């Protein structure tokens, strides 16, 4: 499982459909230099005022000035340009709903082990974080939280519709802030919905993978690993931390990768760490090859004079070390000339099924290609490989 955000535009479409209302918002996507609109702007009225918001799952948009209020139709393009300068590519246009700030309420639903946790407050708005004491909460199991609904002025039928949406779409968390109640029921001025990305298979007539907010991806390699992960049974992740780092990692296992990263940080070499990420769940040779390729590509772009690569991991339960290392070596071979030119040193610590064969393979390759730093199995304590590797780096970092 992992929680991902839906675009506000899609989330509102789903919510308003469930409430039996029409949603008039328009989504805007910047593709290169042109805009793609979900419906033409010419249909909008020149008399009315609109709100333009960044729709990329950013928290605290108001405070970050990512929401532009009271925009006239003819000024919309200017508004997008203003937001594009900040590096954003997806927006939402909605009609302004005139209201008093005292009308703003807060409501959220979250999936917990005990049931669905309803949090609510009759005072909402951008300062909700500071008004934590006023937020009440109740865990819903079978019955409706009638007194909470009465206090909030939320209609029973509308709340039931929200719950329906919550279950049908495998929602993990949804938050309406501000929530304004008008004569025609609830109006979600801002809506944030997090769903479980692994549930896509189970959803009928709801969200799809396309509705998930695109995080601001930093590098091509991060994008590539993301794609690779989505097609694989195994788990592969990659984050670029410092593009000019000197210490690069090919780590396996969620827990072991943290331990190794911690050790780098604890020894004071955190700023030198180029990347974080891990592969686990027995990826095949091809997947390991591609994953390694992306790490090496990133590493070779670094301007650091020293380049050190740690291939690290715990003692695997079922990940085949021989097979995964074959993939690693295939990628190392591909970049051999470039790696040699940059005097890359290789440090390896790994255990698991077929570790002898895997470790022997990588040790002999590293020695033959003059990149050998150290190769060890479980006889070397996990974190010690970091201690050995950082010795290659210039001190006083």
């Amino acid at each position: 499982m992992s929680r991902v955000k839906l675009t506000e535009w899609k989330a509102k479409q789903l919510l308003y459909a469930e409430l039996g209302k029409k949603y008039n918002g328009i989504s805007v996507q910047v593709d290169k230099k042109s805009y793609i609109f979900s419906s033409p702007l010419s249909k909008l009225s020149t008399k009315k005022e609109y709100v333009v918001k960044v729709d990329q799952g950013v928290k605290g948009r108001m405070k970050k000035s990512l929401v532009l209020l009271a925009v006239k139709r003819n000024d919309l393009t200017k508004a997008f340009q203003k937001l594009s300068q900040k590096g954003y590519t997806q927006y939402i246009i909605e009609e302004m709903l005139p209201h008093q700030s005292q009308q703003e309420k807060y409501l959220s639903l979250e999936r917990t082990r005990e049931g669905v946790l309803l949090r609510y407050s009759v005072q909402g708005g951008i300062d909700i974080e500071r008004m934590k004491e006023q937020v009440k909460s109740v865990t819903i199991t079978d019955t409706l939280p009638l007194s909470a609904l009465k206090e909030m002025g939320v209609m029973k039928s509308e709340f039931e519709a929200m719950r329906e949406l919550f279950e049908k779409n495998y929602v993990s968390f949804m938050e309406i802030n501000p929530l304004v109640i008008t004569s025609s029921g609830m109006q979600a001025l801002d809506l944030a919905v997090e769903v479980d990305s692994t549930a896509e298979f189970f959803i009928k007539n709801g969200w799809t993978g396309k509705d998930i907010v695109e995080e601001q991806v930093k590098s091509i390699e991060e994008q590539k690993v993301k794609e690779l992960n989505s097609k694989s049974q195994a788990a592969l992740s990659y984050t670029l931390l410092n593009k000019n780092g000197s210490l690069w990692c090919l780590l396996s296992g969620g827990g072991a990768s943290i331990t190794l990263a911690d050790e780098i940080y604890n020894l004071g070499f955190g700023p030198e760490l180029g990347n974080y990420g891990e592969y686990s769940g027995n990826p095949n040779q091809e997947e390991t090859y591609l994953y390694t390729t992306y790490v090496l590509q990133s590493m070779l772009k670094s301007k650091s004079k020293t380049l050190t690569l740690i291939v690290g991991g715990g003692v695997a339960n079922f990940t085949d070390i021989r097979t995964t290392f074959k993939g690693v070596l295939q990628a190392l071979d591909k970049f051999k000339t470039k790696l040699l030119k940059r005097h890359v040193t290789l440090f390896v610590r790994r255990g698991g099924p077929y570790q002898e064969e895997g470790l022997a393979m990588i040790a002999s390759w590293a020695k033959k290609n003059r990149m050998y730093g150290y190769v060890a199995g479980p006889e070397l304590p996990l974190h010690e490989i970091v201690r050995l590797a950082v010795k290659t780096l210039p001190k006083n970092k």
Partner: protein
Amino acid sequence: MLDISYLRKTNHRIISIGSHPGILQSMMDFDYLSGKSEPDLKAIIASGKKFLRLFWGGQEKLIPIYGSLQAIPDALKRETSLFLNLTSGRRSMSSTLEVLSGFPHLVGGTLFAENIPEKNTLDIYQHIGKKQFIVGPSSVGLLIPGHLKLGAIGGTQAKQLLGADLFEPGNIAVFSSSGGMTNELINLVTGAGKRISFSLSFGGDRFPLLTPIDAFRAAEKDKDTESIVYFGELGGYDEYDLVELIKAKKITKKIITYIGGTISEMFETPPQFGHAKAMAARGEETAQAKTAALKAVGVHATSSFTEFIKLVQSLPDEKKKPNNEREKMVKEMSHRTASYFINGISHDKDGSVEILGKDLLSLATEHSYGYVVGSMLLGRQLKSKNTAEFIDLVMKLLVDHGPYVSGAVNTMISARAGKDLVSSVVSGLLTIGPRFGGAINQAAKHWLEGVEAQVSPYDYVESIAKKRGIISGIGHKKYRVDAPDPRVSLIIGFTKELKQTSYTDFATEVEKITTAKKGNLILNIDGAIAAVLLDLLSEKEGLTEKELLELVDAEFFNAFFVLSRAVGFTAHYLDQKRRDEGLFRLSPKEINYIDKL
């Protein structure tokens, strides 16, 4: 609720849902090296094959595969105490719920899949009984040294299991969200000369079905556990729940822990480190805050791995028992290879051939030919004398039916063309099929279908007539209802020894209907053999309807014709050789030429 002491003193029967040969083999190896007389793994629910071949020590063993939970024999359903679910995230919920309701004495299990939606996990959570437990999702499982391995935990190679000393119980409990770190810690503990009491991984999802707190409680309750080694991560509040339990003196055993994730301090908005759960949104969820809170209540908590290792090493040592015997076993296991074929008919034993567990000589001297043939074709010794006698008769009755039939003609032509024995007989055998000699099997299929569907013989005949089909086993060129085939009454006579004759009854009922239409549509010798054989196999040999259907699919009922008639063809071959008439050729008169169809 996880009760380690109970699990330790109970023998288990495990069902795997889905198959992962590496993991299942490692569980077999674990049991073998633990000195068990048979593996805990009893069956697999999966599609495809009937069996999975796995090694039990150096020998291959067949683990039955069932297409569904319903197909598992009731006795095994009652005996099943644990499950291992290896299906994908998409199938995990439905299959787990099915397992929870399908096995009445189920104690617990492991959920292996990653990518189970949290809503589905919580649905499963609602269905776990008070006395049951499930580790996972995305868990490598649960391990009790020398007793239970439920998942990939500890490794998938026999060598790994031995290296980590997983056969002698100790007094240190080891757990973590991370499967990899669980195994790393097992190796760390055992490498330092200690041994573990039990170990598990709860998996890195947001809602583990068995929570870290459940694991701590289980360790507290377990008499054999004296201390706990735990690898935690940033994110979540489990450690604070632990702090409360320690304050309330509900957890009193020594705990050594490392909370990973100090590196996230480096970032204003940290990237996702480690598992899904490990997203430290708030101050209290950071590794540093948790470590401090645990330290404050006396836990040996650290964020330095070096110190963590020292703490583990400071635990009291346990005497290692020499493992020579097991080392030898593992060495032998490393040389095992899967066989190309498996068979259950015959093998060499002490230089002589043994057929179906009996040496050939006694089989030949103590039993009839019918008994030998019937037993071998069925793959086990016949239980009933009646079956043996019947097969003996059938083998004789089918031996020849004159030189005019296509198989005999083919054999004679080949013989006259100067071909050898095998070629000539085979050319005769090759004509056996849907129109010649293949009727017994087809008739068996009719009688089985009819009885199984419980249709009236009249409706059955009508349904085939409508499709303009013919019923095999019905009809004869020469014999008629008023001039019956004497062989048929001989065959039907065998039903006198039977209490249940549903197939023969059905066949004779069909005959009544067909002969009413036309006099020569009588039950012929093929149909009679099929019907009586079905009744014999069902009553005297105890075969189920499903097993009978499998025999039809494998053409079992045609085998008697093929074997017996081979004698007839051979006779015709030898006869032609004796007469030495030379090459046979037809003249244009005998093969007409008509150019248009």
